């Protein structure tokens, strides 16, 4: 028990780092859900591909990071756009089950494609700057500061985009009522495309800042944890994602630490923490921790 408490600051710092990743993932889920009513099961794959593409650009092709990072993120954004045009557009307004199967199909297609291009178990994605900080009881990489900074920047830019630009107004209008939006001249189809591309950008960024190592399989867990974060923050609430992401990141680290250090249970169960959290939140507070009650139209 004493071990657990002396490790606690480290858990919190680690949780802060993974929390940032989940925030970015959750914002992607929420953006798409808000403007199209679809949950994108391929969101995790965006992250995996973002990280793997960054590896190829930065390590294989030797591009400098300030060039490789925006290029990778842009490429993933483009994949999101292609996905929306090829899968979501033909399946629009055909019901939830159809959309689920469509995006699941896209997800394993992307994962399998990534496996062909990047078959190894681990690719080293370069850190933005080297360096480690050692404080009493806590140590962390410089990458953590990048994560925090970039996440903050992204949250602010999404806020500005959603509230101060015409695109953002269009997206929000689609979220409230797509039919009314199209009546006042908003192109709902373009908005859906924009939402998917932006979500893919966010996912790609999440992936490439996240891990020192990347592989084609990492998308599944990032996806389901990001979704958990989105649900906790209230799905469709782009800023709720911040609360949700931090909750999932911190809880996961602390609970996993408690299980392994205090109770001696294998840390292999760590990934199950988020899922259990997800199911409990869905069952007991489906509107999220801060949201109001859900009303379903018939």
């Amino acid at each position, binding site marked *: 028990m004493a071990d657990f408490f002396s490790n606690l600051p480290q858990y919190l710092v680690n949780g802060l780092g993974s929390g940032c990743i989940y925030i970015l993932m959750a914002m992607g889920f929420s953006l798409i859900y808000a403007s199209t009513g679809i949950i994108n099961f391929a969101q995790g794959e965006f992250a995996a591909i973002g990280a793997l593409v960054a590896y190829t650009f930065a390590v294989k092709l030797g591009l400098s990071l300030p060039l490789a990072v925006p290029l990778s993120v842009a490429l993933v954004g483009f994949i999101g756009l292609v996905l929306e045009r090829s899968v979501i557009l*033909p399946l629009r307004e055909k019901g939830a*089950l159809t959309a689920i199967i469509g995006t*699941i199909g896209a997800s394993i*297609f992307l994962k*399998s494609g990534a496996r062909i291009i990047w078959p190894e178990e681990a690719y080293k994605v370069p850190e933005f700057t080297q360096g480690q900080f050692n404080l009493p009881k806590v140590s962390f990489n410089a990458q953590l500061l990048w994560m925090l900074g970039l996440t903050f920047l992204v949250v602010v830019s999404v806020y500005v985009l959603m509230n101060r630009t015409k695109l953002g107004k269009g997206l929000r209008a689609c979220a409230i009522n797509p039919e009314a939006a199209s009546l006042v001249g908003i192109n709902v189809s373009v908005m859906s495309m924009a939402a998917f591309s932006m979500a893919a950008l966010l996912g790609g960024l999440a992936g490439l800042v996240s891990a020192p190592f990347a592989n084609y399989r990492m998308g599944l867990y990032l996806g389901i944890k990001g*979704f958990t974060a989105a649900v906790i923050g209230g799905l469709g609430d782009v800023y709720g994602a911040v609360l949700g992401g931090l909750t999932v990141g911190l809880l996961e680290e602390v609970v996993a630490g408690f299980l392994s250090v205090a109770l001696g249970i294998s840390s292999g169960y760590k990934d*199950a923490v988020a*899922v259990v959290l997800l199911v409990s939140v869905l069952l007991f507070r*489906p509107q999220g921790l801060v949201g109001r009650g859900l009303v379903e139209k018939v």
Partner: protein
Amino acid sequence: MQEKAFDIKTAARRVWRGYKAFLLFTPFIMTLPLWAERLGKAISLNIVYLMRMVGTFTLVAVGLNLLMGYAGQASLGHGAFMGIGAYTSAILATRWGWPAWIGILLGTLVAAAVGYLVAPILRLRGHYLAMATLGLGIVAYIFFREMIALTEGNVGIREIPKLNFLGMVISSRNGEFYFVWIIAIIVLLMCQNLVRSRVGRAIRAFHQSEVAARVMGVNVPSYKMKVFVLSAALGGLAGGIYSHFQGYINPSQFDVMLSIQLVVMVVVGGMESIWGSVAGASLVVFLPSVVEALPKWLGNVPAWVRQYSNYEGLVFGAILVLTMIFLPKGITTSTVDFFHRKIRKAAALMGEESTDSPPRGE
């Protein structure tokens, strides 16, 4: 109206109309080992061997079809129930030497019990339910991997004994084939009767509109739970049989990819179609072997074609998306519809109305 005397002709006609597919399919499958051996040699496919896997997957696919196709409740974690059945039976057989058929029965019960325990997630709808079941599938996989004392973890359980039934050891390929297909035919028959019954109409009603079904007096939560438990049990049954066929199981056989393969079976075979599950299971089981046999049929094929497992996900992903876009009813229902249209057209040309409309929900 006067009660009609029992008329053997009418009765036979009614059985024929109601169970046409069964009356055609049962003799086909029961005689299959007699002729498939030679055909299989000719086309380099071990048909009997593959068909016994088709039978196994048919069991779980038809259960998932009741849940997803008929009741409209997505499950992306059904591989977990197969895993539970497989592990239960394998552990009982290897540790305690229990006969396989008792292990399979218990595996079915354990899977049903777990299904009952997690059934509260059926309160969730649409995307939420899909994500929650995906999550439960992941949790099950993690448990298979981490409960090493019970499941041997990643090492897996080896030397699972062959099937036996009431003391009779079933180890030949044909024996296994008949064992699984007799069960599968019974299950298919039961499922078809179920979907044609009051229960079947009720679950299709809430697929269309939950509120409307409730208003009509259908106890939606109770039906959802029952269908879910039934499909979990069928998953457990299939898993138990699978483990004795394979002789070796490990956690990665029951990961998310399996659950997605099961969804492919249901979706591509045809949602809301009992026979679609058979077609879907056949497709997923035969595909890798057909690709493997391609060089023998065509002579030279590019090297990458032969490495099917490398791009399996690519194929399944594309199949899922393309089916949803172009054949949302799946191959079975679309084919049947196509022929019915043709027949009707031909009948119309001959100047008579066709009255032979197919019974709904097959």
